[in-house]
């Protein structure tokens, strides 16, 4: 029963998505311009992996998979994070 907007519709909650994120985040963070990897909520209410970019980077954006082990991955430009 895959929800619309989340093709995989994987259940399992926070614990499951944490595991998936942990397996992939080192690789994601090593892509040019990636400043963060976190867990957010998609429009439909499902949890998704959010990859933060310092600016638009077509190269990196094309390398980030659309989903990982059933969880949707979204790319968001959040800028370079500085100590305030």
């Amino acid at each position, binding site marked *: 029963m895959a929800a619309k907007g989340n093709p995989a519709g994987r259940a399992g909650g*926070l614990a499951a998505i*944490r595991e998936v*994120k942990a397996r992939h*985040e*080192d690789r994601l*963070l090593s892509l040019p311009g990636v*400043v*963060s*990897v*976190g*867990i*957010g*909520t998609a429009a439909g209410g499902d*949890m998704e992996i*959010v990859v*933060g970019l310092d600016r638009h980077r077509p190269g990196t954006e094309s390398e980030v998979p659309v989903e990982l082990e059933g969880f949707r991955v979204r790319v968001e*430009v*959040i*800028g*370079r*994070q*500085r*100590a*305030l």
Partner: protein
Amino acid sequence: MQEELDPLRLVLRDMRLDLLERENVVATGIGYKVRGGERTGTLSIVCSVVEKVAGARLAGNALIPPQVGGIPTDVVETGVIRALQARTDRWRPAPGGVSIGHKDITAGTLGCLVKDDAGTYILSNNHVLANSNAGSPGDAILQPGPIDGGKNPADRIAELARFVTIAFPEPAPPSDCPIGNGVASVANLFARAVGSTTRLQAVRPLAAENQVDAALARPVNIADVRNDILEIGTITGVKQGELGMAVRKSGRTSGLTSGEIQQVDVTVDVDYGSGRTARFTDQLLAGAMSQGGDSGSAVLDTSSNLVGLLFAGSDASTIFNRIENVFSALQVHL
């Protein structure tokens, strides 16, 4: 009491514009006349002035007559009256949300007060109170922070007590031996543990990870700090940050702002200037609700439960440590 004030109100209504027109007068009101520093029982029309000047030196019109409409007057010096005391001003006692900083930095925000068995401390970031690892216990903490005019020792409100060291990656020059990386990293950890200065070079920077940017300062005088947060009030408790939670903070630069936790479990690389970047795990991320100088702000939910410690961000985002990680690393509580 009401009837007693009525004649003064009538006179004040007639005379107030005439009094306020005089140079130096910033406010008029009704109060007991003060003589020789002591409050008398005589009601008077009080004129607040920026600066008290001897009558002989005043131009005729600037002088406040000793009586107006048969009511005695009093002149008190209040300085320039501002709408609100600014967060970058000197505050005693100082609440959460105002400017503070280690003597060698610019300024950050006083988060809130926390405790352990030994006493009460000011909580803020390492990079605010401990100058990003460069500070030593006992260093002067100024309120306001140096960039807001705080001077040492005149504005010294506290001393650096302790901080969680921020782990920055080991600087490592490029190498063409990728296989050695894992071995070198493990060996570096070992070398660090035994305090050796001859470390093996890793191919990639050692991925040192942090959970908090946090430090404590011990107030020089406990009466100089306040257990509340400006525009928020008293902290009611501690709560775990969750996706979708509405939060707010009270900070030196952008004041009271609110947002929503958009991401949890965030691993993020944060720029500390001078080419230093530190990686943080288990962070909370909200939208734009902070600016430079807001670092150290307490982040609370809408019921004033403490949720996080703000330390980083961009034009589009704000990053804060989970308060439970801060409390556990520093061994403190509310």
